[in-house]
């Protein structure tokens, strides 16, 4: 329960900041909380792979910013993204709650049944979709892509074998998404500055 509050808070922060470097720092927080949540359902090596990929991605975005002033103001889009995630997450959980096949409790810290992993993954995925659909530039497109991939990484914790291969593939995907996003941010800025 506590982790769900934290993931919602850091997503809101990442969604609301206007500077790309602040987005990168906020994404570090998302990675940190997602790793905490994932640690209940994955081994230390799998969590480490995902966390390192998240940190590398945040670093790539930070460098791509060039300076502290570049970014995109979300404006009203912030609330659209937040409310969409708030509506979609309970709907998705209600549809797929049969994962465990039995009623799950929602403890304050520990997550033995995987329900926190599932809800947090769905939250990040739906937040990312909403941010992506309302993005106007490569800055928020990149943030949305990284948030979605982080959500997928959490959902993948529930999948059976091959868990290490899935962790590695998704970690590489996250880094490639960050590199692609950074490339687009740099090129878009070049066009705007011209």
């Amino acid at each position, binding site marked *: 329960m506590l982790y769900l509050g934290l993931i919602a808070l850091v997503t809101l922060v990442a969604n609301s900041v206007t500077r790309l470097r602040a987005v990168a720092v906020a994404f570090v927080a998302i990675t940190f909380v997602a790793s905490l949540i994932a640690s209940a359902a994955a081994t230390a090596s799998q969590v480490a792979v995902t966390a390192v990929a998240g940190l590398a991605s945040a670093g790539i975005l930070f460098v791509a910013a060039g300076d502290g002033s570049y970014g995109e103001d979300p404006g009203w889009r912030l609330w659209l993204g937040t409310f969409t995630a708030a509506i979609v997450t309970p709907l998705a959980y209600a549809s797929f709650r049969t*994962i465990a096949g039995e009623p799950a409790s929602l403890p304050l810290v520990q997550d033995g049944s995987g329900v926190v992993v599932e809800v947090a993954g769905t939250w990040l995925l739906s937040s990312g*979709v909403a941010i992506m659909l309302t993005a106007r530039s490569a800055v928020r497109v990149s943030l949305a*892509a990284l948030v979605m991939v982080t959500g997928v990484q959490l959902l993948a914790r529930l999948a059976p074998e091959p868990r290490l291969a899935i962790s590695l593939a998704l970690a590489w995907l996250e880094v490639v998404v960050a590199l692609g996003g950074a490339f687009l941010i740099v090129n878009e800025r070049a066009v705007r500055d011209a």
Partner: protein
Amino acid sequence: MTVAAPAVLLAVAACVAFALRKRVAGVARLSLGAIGLAFIAVSVTPPDTTARLLDLDLRASDLGRLAGLVLLATIGMLVLDVFLDEPAYNFFPSALLAGAVALAVLVVSSPIVILALLLIGLLVPVGTFTYQVHRNRSVEAAIRHFSFVVLGGSLGLGSLCVAASLPKDQPAITVVLLVVLLFVAFAFLLAAIPFHTHAALLAGEAPASALALHFGVLVPVTFIAFAEILAASGLLPAIVQVNKVQDLLLGIGLTSALGGALLAAGANDLRRLVVYAVISNLGSALVGIATLSGPGIIGGIATAIVTGACATQQLLAAGTLERRAAGERPNVTHAPLAAGAFIAGGIAMIGAPPLVTFPGHFFVDLIAYALSGFAGSALVAAAILLLIAQLRAGVRLFAGSPEEWRIEPRPVAGALGAVILVVLLAGGIAPDPFLRPIAAFADEFLKALRPL
């Protein structure tokens, strides 16, 4: 490790090529050498060889071997064309990495890993889509492509993760939701209509060689990955039981086949025509998969593979014609051999006999008629529209005076187009080596459909 060796070789070569990318000639030769070695390695790997890498099972299937060889040959031709005709330093690492990912997708057994690798492959060409950023909208096109790929891919991965974690005997609504998400995800990745706007923008703004890498290599891999994921995800038995899901895939396929053909018929430039023709053919191929029958699956996958080769042939020719036209409307007088290659690619794209593109279209049309008269008629209408579109483009291309035709000085696209035509013709005369591996996969697909 022999199963993974070709993909690893290309991945290492991509890293080296990226480090040395400014030395265009050297990197091009390195790329061609790596692709040649990977081609040999794939050819000599016996079918059904298995391996285990970390906790992941790998298998060299008949279809993987066939598709791997076709795709490597296509990438080799693209690299040769870029090297000789249109030097672009950022193309070679992208092409090598796309090849590595394509080969990896074809040997991996886990659906989630297949889709994750596929997404990496689809994101790699973003670097080749952007060019002359101050003079065109290529950055906007690349951003839209990036968005659609990540959006579709994340939805697909999410649905696969949830599907993998569900216990058996789920309510029908749960299965329907997951499968709908997966289908929509692949509709995004395949640019099926109405999820095609990123492809439309790319067609107008990205370089022809980058478009050929995407539509000639990565889109066919995406289609094969879709079929492999369906077969390996365990969702097929549930799909058979819920007719609505099968109808959804059929609907997406028919809309894409007809819509793509209509857009192709109205396309004003060569590259858009090719891209819409690919979308239309992949729509037909989706109809083949949606029939969940042996001939439909064989026809669908055969259509997807050869459509990639035809798209490469036509896009390279279109690129050469546009470059030689230097702003004017492309005409046969600018590059007669490239124009000939474009026409030959058009004939192959519509599935005309005796080329190897014919059996795939024939199987899908036949099984679509068996399923419903409307579906069969719609596919035939799409084929006629594509024929009209290609004829229209041909008439426009050959509207010049015959006396002015001179063979272009460096006819790379024309020569490569001739090679592709000969291969398509040879495959049409003796289609067994091409269709048999696809039939083996169709057999596995049907076993996954009805495991008992």
